[in-house]
């Protein structure tokens, strides 16, 4: 039987991988993938904790809601990346540093 802790470990590992990707990758798509990984870690957590709410299935519902939202944000993020590419001819976030002082 798979215990609750195993879910949480997998979720934490996923989250750390996602975080590492977000911080270290040079490609905006990969960063986006990292973000998706972190989101999925959160979703995994929601599903895992959903066993304590067997009647309303609030956890399952919220996970579905988060997945839909993630798809929406990914679409927006890809659009942004496309625009960034058009403007800067690169999607390396280190080179798009117009935000600095």
């Amino acid at each position, binding site marked *: 039987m798979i215990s609750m802790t195993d879910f949480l470990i997998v979720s934490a590992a996923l989250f750390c991988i996602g975080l590492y990707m977000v*911080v270290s990758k040079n490609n905006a798509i990969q960063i986006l993938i990292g973000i998706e990984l972190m989101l999925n870690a959160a979703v995994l957590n929601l599903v895992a904790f959903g066993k304590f709410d067997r009647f309303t299935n609030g956890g399952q519902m919220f996970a579905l809601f988060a997945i839909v939202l993630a798809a929406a944000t990914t679409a927006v993020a890809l659009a942004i990346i496309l625009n960034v590419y058009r403007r800067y001819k690169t999607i390396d*976030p280190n080179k798009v*540093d117009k*935000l600095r002082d």
Partner: protein
Amino acid sequence: MNLTHPYEDITTVYYALAAVLLPLFAFLVNVCLPGKRNKISGWVSTLAILISTVLSVLVFAGIWNREPLHVQTLWFTIGATKLYAGILLNNLSALMLLLVSLVALPVHIYSTAYMGHDENYKRYFSYLSFFCFSMLALVVVDNMFLFYAFWELVGFSSYLLIGFWFTKSKAVQANKKAFIMNRIGDVGLLVAIIILFTYYHTADIVQLFGDNAAVKATQISALWQSIACVGIFLGVAAKSAQFPLHTWLPDAMEGPTSVSALIHAATMVAAGVFLLGRVYPMFNSAELDILAIIGCFTAFMAATIALTQNDLKRILAYSTISQLGFMIMAMGIGAYASSLFHLATHAFFKCLLFLIAGIVIHQMQHIKDDNNLDIDPQDIQHMGGLRKKLPVTFIAAVIGSLALIGIPLTSGYLSKDGILVQAFEWSDSKSWVYRLVPIFALLAGLLTAFYIARLIVKVFFGELRLLKHHPHLKIHLGDGGWQYRIPLILLAICCFFPLFSINPVIYEQSWIVGGLKQNIILDRLDIYHTIIPVGATILNVFVMYFAYNMYVKRKTFAFPQTGFLYNLSYHEWYIDKFYNTVIVKPIMALSKTASWFDKYVIDGFINLLKNTVLILSKIAAFIDKYIIDGLLHLLTAIVQQIGNFARNFQSGKIQYYLFSMLVIVLALFIYFLF
């Protein structure tokens, strides 16, 4: 204007004023003229002095032996004392006015040619006109302060003209010497004027020394009176080159010869005698005796020096000193009229002799330039035999010399023998010591005959001595143009008796003596009046013959060129050397010490102060630069570092932001966990 003597016609005064101011006008015009060698300047000056001469003749005709004219106007007021300035025309000033302009005119004409090749022709005539103005003003002013002002101005213009060729160092030395010597005299005169003003509250010459002379009416304390007289004497001695202040005059010959003729022979040096004539009543008999002795000594000393000099102009300069000594002596013995008479006659013949010297020097200069010789054109040892080349000059020179010696029929005879006669009469009433004065004066006269005969013989007789050493000289000499001849002829005519007296042998009948006598009975009282002129003439002729033999025929022995007396004369009685050792050198030493003190002690102290301040300020600058500025820089550096540190967070890299956010969140998390 107010007239002290109501006089209907003051045109004469205007004439005199115009005569005085015309040269000043010429001076101003010359200053404004363009160019250094503007030929117009010579004619402006000459025309001015010509008109001045004509006006002076008119003034003279209006004044001589008539009521004196005295016109004055209020000059300024100090407290209650009113000072008047004006013109005093009496016999003396009218005579001097005429004399100065009459001598200045030929000199101007002569100068137009003599200075013609000088590049500073215009400056020369400006100075000359300025001198004429000062001198003419000097003789007509009625006020001692104005007199002093013009006295200074003639001294100043003389200074300018002695140093006319100021690129020659000798000329600069000479004009400095003349200036300093005259300064001593000027201080004396100023002291005398101030003493007189203090006691009599007036500087008016008429009130002080006129008919009711203040100096006779009220006696001042003997001490102050003596000081005033010494002051006047110093002024006279400096201006008229009397011992002990005579040494500037021979050196003053560095100026142009025409200047020497006008200023240092005829007019300015006579200003001292003129001053004596103006202030004559203030001297008492003891002071007059001293004056006579000094005059006599100067006359004798200068005559002995003139015997051995070789510089043509220097001989004439010493001759001038000697003749001025005669005039001063004449003043001392009471021969007031004779003194001024001698002044007038001397002015003409000495001016003539100087103009001749100028021509001779010019001709020698031409020989020198034509043949590239290295000789002094003024040295009479090179000259000789010029009488055939320069006939007019030769005749004029002989006339001038005979007048200087005092041969009958010349003017010099009348004036000089008059002085000698009166000197013998004067010494009669005194002890035997005073007998030396006329005897030395007579001796000086004989020496005059010798040295001037030597001069004439060496210059005009025999053969040109230069030819002995340089046998192939190119020589073309001549008297020069009319600008040279006319002045010589004019002055030569003035050397004869008719201008001064109808009777050629009796000086008492001269009109100048008649016009200037001061209650002295001019009768032929005693044997002197006959014996002295005759004796002096015979001796003079003998001396001249002796000199002629000695230098032309070489019959008699030649004087040894060694020995004490020769050296004494040749070195001008060692007076210059004495002054150099006793006065100049100590003063130079003193000023060198002062200069040393100034340079090393005072300047040293100031330098020390300077260096101290410099070091202090360097320290201050160091503190300012490295400590105060350093602090500020440190502060800014810190702020900059902090700023840079803070900037690092704003790198614009999203991942960096994210990472820092993660670190902070983790840090907070860890912080709250424990």
